[in-house]
C-alpha cells in the first residue's frame, strides 16, 4: 500500500517537473528592462513616489491656515 502511494507520488512529481521544465524562458536582461520601463512609465502617477499635493490629500485632516 505505502509503496504504491510512494510510487504514484513519484510519478506525479515527475509529471509536475516535466511541466515546469517545459516553460519558455526569456533572458533576464529583457525581463529587467521591461520591469524598469513599467516603473518609469508609471512613476509620474505614483503618489507615494512623487508626493500628494497638500490640498488634495485624502488622508490628511483639513486644517485652517495660520500665518506664523
Amino acid at each position: 500500500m505505502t509503496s504504491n502511494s510512494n510510487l504514484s507520488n513519484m510519478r506525479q512529481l515527475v509529471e509536475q517537473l516535466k511541466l515546469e521544465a517545459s516553460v519558455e524562458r526569456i533572458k533576464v536582461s529583457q525581463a529587467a528592462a521591461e520591469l524598469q520601463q513599467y516603473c518609469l512609465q508609471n512613476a509620474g502617477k505614483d503618489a507615494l513616489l512623487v508626493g500628494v499635493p497638500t490640498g488634495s490629500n485624502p488622508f490628511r485632516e483639513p486644517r485652517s491656515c495660520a500665518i506664523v
Partner: protein
Amino acid sequence: MAAEKAEMDALKKECDGLRAQIEAARKAVNDGSMSAAASGVASVGRVQLKLRKTLKGHLAKIYAMHWSADSRQMVSASQDGKLLIWDCFTGNKLVAVPLKSAWVMSVAFAPSGNLVASGGLDNICTVYNIKAASPKTLRELDAHTGYLSCCRFLSDTEILTASGDTTCCLWDLETGKQKVIFTNHIGDCMSLALSPDMNTFISGACDSLAKLWDLREGACKQTFSGHTSDINAISFFQSGNAIITGSDDCQCKMYDLRSDQEVICYQDASLNAGVTSLALSSSGRLIFAGYDDFNCHIWDSLKGEKVGVLSGHDNRVSCTGVPDDGMGVCTGSWDSFLKLWN
C-alpha cells in the same frame, strides 16, 4: 517488490535529471542582474512618508487588513474577535462584524464592496454581507483541514483561499462548494495573490517555495525557490510579469515569471527580523515590507536598496496594504493600531 524499487529508482533519477534541466535552462537565460541593469536609473532618494492617521478601535493584535477597491474603505481583523470596516478619509468606523471565532488570520474585501471574508484557526472562511442592515453571514466555507491563512475574492461569486493544510482552494459562493483544489505545496500555505488579469494566482508557503497556478485548470505552472524559510507574504508586480515574496529568512525577493527565476534580493545585514507582509506602490517602484522589528521598511524594487522606513508601531507590523489608487499605505500591527501614511 524488486520491480517497484526499480521503477522508484528510475523515477528518482528522472526527477534529478529534470531538476538539473530546469536549473540549466534558468542559468542559460541569466545574462545579467536586475540591479546592474538599474544602474542607469535615477535613484528615488530618501522616501519620507508622514503618518496621517492612527486608527484606534481594536482591543487586541491586528492580524490582517485589506483595502476596498474604492481606495477609501478598508477592513481590518483582530484577535479581539472583530472585523472593523473603516472610512479612511475620516477615520470613522463604519461597520463592526463580530466573529464566531476570535482566532482570525486573514480578511478580504470583495471588489464590489458588498462582501468581506475572514478566517483563521477555525479552518473556515466565513463570508459576510456588510450591506445588510447588520452584517449577515452569507456562507461558511468549511472544507480545509488546516487554518485559513489568506483569502481573496475574485468577485461576489468566487473566492480563493490558502490554508495550513498545504492547499489553496477556489470556491463557488453560490453553492458554498469547492470548485478547484490546488495541491503541490509540501508546507502550510501562508499567502496568496491574484494576477492582474485574474487567470493565475501565486502562493507562498512554509516549504519556502512560491508557486504560480492556473486558476481554471488547477495546475501548478511554475515553482520558485531561493528562500530558506517560510514565505509569509506574496504580491504581483502590477505588470503581471513579476512577483515579490517576503520571508521569515528576513529577505524579500523578486522573481520574474517569464525568465522563471529570482532576479533581485532585498536584504540588509542590519535587518534580522522576518518579513510579515508586503505591498507595492502603484508604479511598482517601491516595496513596503512589514517586519517583526516593529517597522515597515521601504525598498527600491529596481535597485534593491533600502530607501526609507515607516516607524511608529510598538509591536510587530503584521499587515501592509496600498489601495488601488496608490494614494497611501496602511500598516497594521500587533500593537492594535492601524496607521495611514503618505
